[in-house]
C-alpha cells in the first residue's frame, strides 16, 4: 500500500490489536489490523463461527432537527422519510450530477438519524452534508465512539452470552432485532447502539460503543470461544464473496447508481418523485439503460485477477475494467467484480480479462457469489 504513513491516527483499540498479534497497515488515515492469524483462517472462521471486526475508522454521524429525513433525501435516493424508528436503510450520497460520493447506512433512532459512512470519505462527506443541508439541522460527528462488528452464524449466540440489557425494562434485546433493525441497549451500564447489519453477507451486529469502553467490550467478546478478532484482509474477501461493493474501488464519483448495479437503492417512491441530486441523469439510466454495469466474474483457473486489470474484446481493445478481485476462500476459486458493457453483462457471458499481458478467461456470475445468511423477518 502506498498510503502516506505520516500523521496516521490510532484506533481506540490500537494496543489491543497489537496485543492480539495483528499486523497493522495504513488504511483510511488510520493504522488498522490487516490480519491476526491469517486471512484464509479468519475468513473461514467468520463464515462458520463469529468474527470481531474493528471498524472504528468509519464515520458515525448524527443528523438532528425537524425535517432531517426530508433534507437528506435531497442528496440520497433512499426513502428515508418513510423509515420507521428502529429501521436501517442502505443508501447513496449523490453529487449534484448523480455521481456516487459514498455509500452509507441511515438509521432512524426515533429522535434523529444516525449515519455510518466510509472512513476514507468521512471528512469529505461531512463537508458536503454541511454545505447541502439546511442550517436548521445539526450534524454531529461522533468521534468519541468506536464501532465493532460481530459477524458470523454464531454472532447471535455470542452476543446473547454478554448479558446485554434492554435500554428500558420492556424494550427488546439485541437478539430480538432482525436484519436492518437497530436499537439502544445497556451493557453493565454502558450505552451501546446495536444494529443487525454488516459487510460480510453473514448474520451479525454492528455495535457503537463509547471509545473508553471499546477494549472492555472487545475483550469480553473475544473471550468467548466462538469469537476471534478478524482483520481488514478477511473483511475484504468476505464482502467480495457477498457481492458487496467497496467505495473507492467498485464505485466512485464518476459512477452512477445504475452503472454500479445498485438499482435496489433507488426506491420506487423516490424514483417517482425524482427530486434527489442528479435524479435526471440517474433515472435516465434506470433500470438497464446504462452503457456499462458492475457485474461479478468467475475466473477460470486458479490465478486471481486484481483491481486494475482490463476487460478486453476479441480485438484486444479495452472495454471495461476489474475493480475488485481475489481468491474466494469459501469457493476455493478466484472471483472478481468488473465493469463491462451492458450487452456483455448477462450471467454466463464469456469475458476476457487482461492482466500483465496475459489473457484470462472469465464468465459473468450472479452475485452474491456466496449466499447471504441474514436474519430476515420474512425469508425472501
Amino acid at each position, binding site marked *: 500500500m502506498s498510503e502516506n504513513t505520516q500523521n496516521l491516527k490510532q484506533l481506540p483499540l490500537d494496543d489491543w490489536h497489537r496485543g492480539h498479534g495483528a499486523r497493522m497497515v495504513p488504511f483510511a488515515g488510520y493504522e488498522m489490523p490487516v490480519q491476526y492469524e*491469517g486471512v*484464509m483462517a479468519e475468513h473461514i472462521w467468520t463464515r462458520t463461527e463469529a468474527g470481531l471486526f474493528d471498524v472504528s475508522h468509519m464515520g458515525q454521524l448524527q443528523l438532528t432537527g425537524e425535517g432531517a429525513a426530508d433534507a437528506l433525501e435531497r442528496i440520497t435516493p433512499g426513502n428515508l422519510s418513510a423509515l420507521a424508528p428502529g429501521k436501517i436503510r442502505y443508501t447513496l450520497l449523490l453529487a449534484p450530477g448523480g455521481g456516487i460520493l459514498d455509500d452509507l447506512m441511515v438509521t432512524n433512532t426515533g429522535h434523529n438519524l444516525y449515519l455510518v459512512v466510509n472512513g476514507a470519505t468521512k471528512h469529505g462527506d461531512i463537508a458536503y452534508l454541511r454545505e447541502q443541508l439546511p442550517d436548521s439541522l445539526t450534524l454531529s460527528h461522533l468521534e468519541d465512539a468506536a464501532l465493532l462488528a460481530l459477524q458470523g452464524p454464531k454472532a447471535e449466540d455470542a452476543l446473547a452470552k454478554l448479558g446485554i440489557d434492554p435500554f428500558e425494562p420492556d424494550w427488546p434485546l439485541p437478539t430480538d432485532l432482525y436484519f436492518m433493525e437497530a436499537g439502544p441497549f445497556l451493557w453493565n451500564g454502558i450505552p451501546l447502539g446495536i444494529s443487525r447489519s454488516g459487510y460480510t453477507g453473514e448474520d451479525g451486529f454492528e455495535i457503537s460503543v463509547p471509545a473508553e469502553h471499546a477494549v472492555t467490550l472487545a475483550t469480553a467478546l473475544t473471550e468467548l470461544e466462538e469469537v476471534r478478532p478478524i482483520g481488514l484482509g478477511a473483511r475484504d474477501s468476505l464482502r467480495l464473496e457477498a457481492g458487496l461493493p467497496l467505495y473507492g474501488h467498485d464505485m466512485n464519483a464518476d459512477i452512477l447508481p445504475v452503472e454500479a448495479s445498485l438499482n435496489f437503492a433507488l426506491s420506487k417512491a423516490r424514483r417517482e418523485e425524482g427530486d434527489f441530486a442528479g435524479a435526471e441523469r440517474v433515472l435516465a439510466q434506470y433500470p438497464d439503460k446504462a452503457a456499462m454495469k458492475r457485474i461479478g466474474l468467475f475466473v477460470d483457473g486458479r490465478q486471481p485477477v486484481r483491481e486494475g486489470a482490463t476487460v478486453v474484446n476479441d480485438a484486444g481493445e479495452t472495454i471495461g475494467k476489474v475493480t475488485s478481485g481475489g*481468491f474466494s476462500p469459501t469457493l476455493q476459486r478466484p472471483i472478481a467484480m468488473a465493469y463491462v458493457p451492458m450487452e456483455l453483462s448477462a450471467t454466463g457471458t464469456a469475458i476476457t480479462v487482461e492482466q500483465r499481458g496475459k489473457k484470462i478467461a472469465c464468465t459473468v456470475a450472479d452475485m452474491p457469489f456466496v449466499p447471504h445468511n441474514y436474519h430476515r423477518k420474512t425469508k425472501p
Partner: protein
Amino acid sequence: MSRYFTDEHEWVDVEGDTATVGITDYAQEQLGDIVFVEVPEVGSELAQGDDAAVVESVKAASDVYAAVSGEVVEVNEALEDEPGLVNSSAEEDGWFFRLTLSDKDELSDLMDEKAYKAFVDNL
C-alpha cells in the same frame, strides 16, 4: 552447494551452473496464504532484475524478480496443484524454478545467510 539471498526476499541455491530460486520463509510469512504461483516458462531467458514469477495471496499479487540471469530449465510443477507449499516449505519444497546461470559474477551482488538474517532483523 551455496545459498544466496536477495533484498527482495528470494533465495538462490547454486550447484555448479544451476541455480534454484524460491522466496524466503520471511517473505511467505509476510504474504500470508498463497493461492497461486505464476512461474516462468521453461526455456525463457531471464536477465537479472526481470519479472520472473508472480505470487498471489488471498489479498494481493507480488512480483518475484530474477535474482540472477539465465535460462529457465525447470519449474516446480507441484505448485500448480499445491501453491500452499510456499507457505509450508518456502525454502525447500516450495521452490519456484531452476535456471542455468549465464553470469556467475552476479552472485557477488547477493547476500549470504548471515547477511540476510541481519537484513531481516533490521526490517
